[in-house]
Structures are given as C-alpha cells and as structure tokens.
C-alpha cells in the first residue's frame, strides 16, 4: 500500500474478479440474463425477501461489458424483533450484460425494482424486457446518451474539457513579448500608431 505514480493506468479489466476476501456479503452469484430470473426466484424462495438495491456498472473493456448488480437481504416479511432478524445475510447477484442485450425485469418479484431498473436503463442504457414502464427517470426524456457509461464525457457531450472564458487580453500579452530588437521596434510603432490614429479596432481584428 505504497503511494505510487498515477501515470501508469491500471490493467485491471474486471475488478470484481480480483476482489480481496471481504465478508461484506455472504454470497456472490455471477449469472447471465437468461438465467437471472431463475437465480433470483430461487434466492427469494430461500428467504432473500428484501431487494435492497439494483445498480449498474460499466467495465468498458470487459466482455460482457456491463454488470447489473442486485443486492438482496434476508428479512422476515412479518413484524419481527431484532433477535428474530439477527445478523443480516446478504447476497449479491452480478448479471453480465453486453451492449444491445436486455435483462428480464424482476418487477413482478419485487415491486421496488421498478424505479431501480428504470434508473439502470436511464444511466447505462441497459433495457429491461417486460418492464411495464421503461422510461428515463433521472435525465430528461429527450436526452441522448447514457451518462454513467465510461465512454460518456464527464461534462456532457462535446464538453469533455472545462470551458474557459475567452480572454483576449492575455493572448495579446503573450504574443507581444518582444523576442528581438526589431520586433520590439515594430511593437512600439504599432502602439504609437494606435495611440495616435486607431480606436482599438485593429487590436480586435488581430485578436
């Protein structure tokens, strides 16, 4: 854990494959869109009744490119005390999806998947087949592109750099540093000319 130079970019294509041993969840299941519903139905039957979260991740260079991440928690579906609930058991289901593939909805298993799937669709462009109301949820309806994709510029389309206000004065100063005696003489002449004849227009034209 030494600080190293940031110049070398990481070669880790799939961070989920090289995760250190952490007990943040009890089960991690990797699946495909075709088997997803079977896996989730089975988990629900085993008591994972709380769909805690549905999120997405874009790994860009990986095959398949996206992950839809389901986080499930075991919870009783009736009034229960702390002792009955006990230490939470969690399962994470990673469903690999490629560009253009769709994922079956789990809206009928957990109604809360409705908005969560809409959000994944909105921000990653992963469609959910069978979803009753698949519209954008965060971005405007007529937005183009999916912002959380890794190839989407941070500041929006066409604006991947910080916009700077035009500052012609600074450019002029930079260009007017006289490198030679002749150039200095030309500059002095130009300034004189503008002081006596010009109204500043020539400077604008130059800029």
């Amino acid at each position, binding site marked *: *854990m030494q600080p190293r130079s940031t110049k070398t970019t990481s070669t*880790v294509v799939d*961070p989920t494959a090289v995760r250190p041993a952490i007990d943040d969840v009890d089960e991690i299941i990797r699946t495909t869109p075709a088997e997803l519903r079977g896996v989730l139905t089975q988990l629900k039957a085993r008591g994972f009744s709380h769909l805690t979260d549905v999120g997405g*991740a874009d790994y860009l260079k990986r095959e398949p490119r996206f992950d839809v991440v389901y986080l499930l928690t075991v919870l009783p579906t009736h009034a229960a005390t*702390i002792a009955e609930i006990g230490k939470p058991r969690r399962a994470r289901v990673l469903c690999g999806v490629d560009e253009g593939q769709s994922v079956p909805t789990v809206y009928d298993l957990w109604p809360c998947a*409705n908005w969560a799937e809409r959000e994944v669709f909105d921000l990653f462009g992963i469609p959910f087949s069978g979803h009753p109301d698949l519209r954008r949820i965060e971005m405007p*309806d007529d937005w183009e592109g999916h912002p959380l994709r890794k190839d989407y510029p941070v500041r929006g389309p066409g604006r991947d750099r910080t916009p700077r206000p035009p500052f012609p004065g600074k450019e002029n100063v930079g260009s007017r540093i006289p490198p030679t005696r002749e150039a200095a003489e030309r500059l002095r002449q130009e300034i004189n000319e503008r002081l006596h004849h010009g109204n500043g227009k020539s400077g604008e034209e130059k800029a």
Partner: protein
Amino acid sequence: MSDHLPDWIGSEGNPNNFGDPTAVLEPEPYEVVSRNDDQMVLSMGPQHPSTHGVLQVVLGIDGETVTRAEPEIGYLHTGIEKSAENLFWNQSLTVIDRMDYLAPLTNNFAFVRGVERLLGITDQVPRRAQQIRVMMAEMTRITSHCIWLGTHAIDLGAISPFFYTVDLRENILDLIESASGARMNMTYFRVGGINGDLPEGFLERLDELIAKFPRRMRDLRDLLQQNPIWTDREIGVGIISPEDAVAWGLTGPALRASGVAYDLRKIEPYSTYEEYEFDVPTRTEGDCYARFLVRLDEMEESMRIIAQVRKKLEPGPIMINEPAVALPPKPSIGLSMESLIYHFKLVSEGFRVPAGDVYGAVEGPRGEIGYYIVSSGENKPWRVRTRPPSFYNLQALRKIAAGNLIADVVVMIGSLDPVFGEVDR
C-alpha cells in the same frame, strides 16, 4: 413527456400578453386537468411547498379520492455518482456529502466504511475516531429528524413546531460546526479516521445540550403527539403492511414503523455501536402516526447514544497510523523528509485502493444508506453506486397513496421523509 402527463405540460404556456400594461387581461382558462373516463389527472409539483423539494406527483383522482399516484423524480439530478468517479477517494467525500444534504455525515460514514473495507484497515481505525464518528452520526440523525418534523408539521398547518425544531437543530449544528468547520456538507470523515479532533470546550457544550435535550423533546411531544388535529390527520393514513414494506424495499423508520426491527446499528454493529445501550423503536401500525412516533423515539435514543459516547470517549489518535493513507501530522512535515514526500504525494495524487468491489452501509436517518464501490486499483473510484434509502422509500408512495384523499398525499410524502438530493443524486 410521457402520455400520462397532463396535456398542458409542454404547451406554449399562458398566452396572456403581459407586454401591454393597458390591455385588459383576460383570465385564461387553461386546462390544469385532463379528463379521461371518470378519472381526472392532476399534476402536483414539482414546485409545490409540501413536496419537500422538487417532486412532481401525477395524481389520478376521482372526486377527492386518489386512484393512482405516480411520483416523477429527476428534477434535482446532479450526476454525483459520475462526479465521484473522477475525484480522488478522499475528494469523493465532498460530493457524496451533497446527496443527502440533511444528513451529510452518514453519507460520509457509509462511504469511508466501504473504502476502509476494501483497504483492509477497518480494524486499524483508532477508537477515538470511531467514537467521534458515532457521536457525529447520531447528532446528524437528530438534526435531520428536526427538519423532517418541522417541515412535516408545516405541511399539516402547524407552524410553531418548526421554530422549536430549528432551534434545536441550530444548537446541534453549532457543535458540529465547531468540530468540522461547516454547518452543512461537513466532510468531517476521512478514509482512516476523521479530519480534526474535537475543539476545546466541545464536551462542556455537549453536556449542556444533553442536559436540556429531554426538555426540548417534551416540548415537541406536547405540541404534537396528543394534538387532536395532528392525530386526526396522521392515524390510519398511509398504512404499509410489513409484507409490503419489505417487498417495496423500505428501510429505516418507514420499515420499523411497520414492525420489522431492521436497524444496522443493532444487527450489524459497526464503529463501537455494540458497546452502547439503546433500543430500536418499532411500531406495528405502519401508518403515518407510527412513523412519526418512531422518529421521535429515535431522536431520544440517539441522544442516549451520544451521552454514552461522551462518557466513554477516550483520548487518543484520530487518524490511522498508515502513511500511505493518512496525511502526516503537520509539524512533522518541517522535520522529516519522508513526511514531506508523503504529504506531497497524498495531496497531489491521492492514495490507491486495491482492485475489487465492496458494499458498505450504515443506518442513516432515512434508512440503510449504502455504497457499492468498485475500485480498479487506481487513485479514483471506478464506480460508486449509492443505495439511496429515500429513493426506495418514496417509491412506496405509489403503493400507499391510492384510496386516500388528496390532502393525505401531503401527509404521506412528509412521513416518508424523502430528500431529493439523494433521490435524484
């Protein structure tokens, strides 16, 4: 816009000509409602005082009764998750603060907890830092519930509680400010500890607060709890059964008011929570009044925890002793070359986190706030996915609003306590 929205949205707007002051303005009977079958569609918000931010609820109504409610969110989407992917790990904390702006420190708490797990340093975070984190998180919970109670009461026509709650909130914010330097968006936590130690005189002021807190809570309870107008509006409104609460992904007070005592502080204790005695308030009714009582009880439990932390607070370091993650102490920079190098490296390019993915969650004022963090081994996160409690809690409005009166929708939104910085992120 989609087809279930009223027709007037997206139209040319009010055609009245305001340019000519002498012209007689005819009240334009523009159509606020569109009628299809027996059901009217009414748009509430996004600029509506009782929606606690920018929420639009498209209501299908039959007379005064709501037949369908469809919340439309996204008016406060700021792309915080995308921003966090482009900042250093500790810098990400500053934008993560801004999600749930009423409880910034619990957001920080969940994030640093996830990153520390990924770094494998959870056990090395100093005890004093853990205790101060707990204290600050509980203070945040009280301040957040203060705003919830004040605004919720205003929605129902009671103005006075707002002044009481804001006064209490100010007292607590003064304390937090003295430690962290800010009243909102504090960014007080760091990966591996906290930013600075408690200032001089903090504990004395905290003692004063602890001493006067029960009186403040009694005032609040006297104002509302037995108030017949309040109980009439709250009892039996917006009932969520435990089955529905779990199926709709509720967490926090909304889930506990339905009887499921799911509280991460108790069932998955973190940062010395296992040492404190406190109860998890639960109710079984599942209506708005139950959520109101659960939150009030929670404020008292939080103060109970703070008092215990204050007693057990031990002197010691507040930052992990790991030069690759923590900034070296300021005086050492002038004395040691290594300190200077580490300081420069950490400030200019941050630290790196081993590749992998992790989920870190804490119990926030609104429920389980969690972060699914993916690191590719860089000095910036690859992906920061928030598990937003308000997002899931608010969604349940679709379930509970139908069959109630329009006026009760306001009560239900208030009792679910959404914060739109977090819903939309």
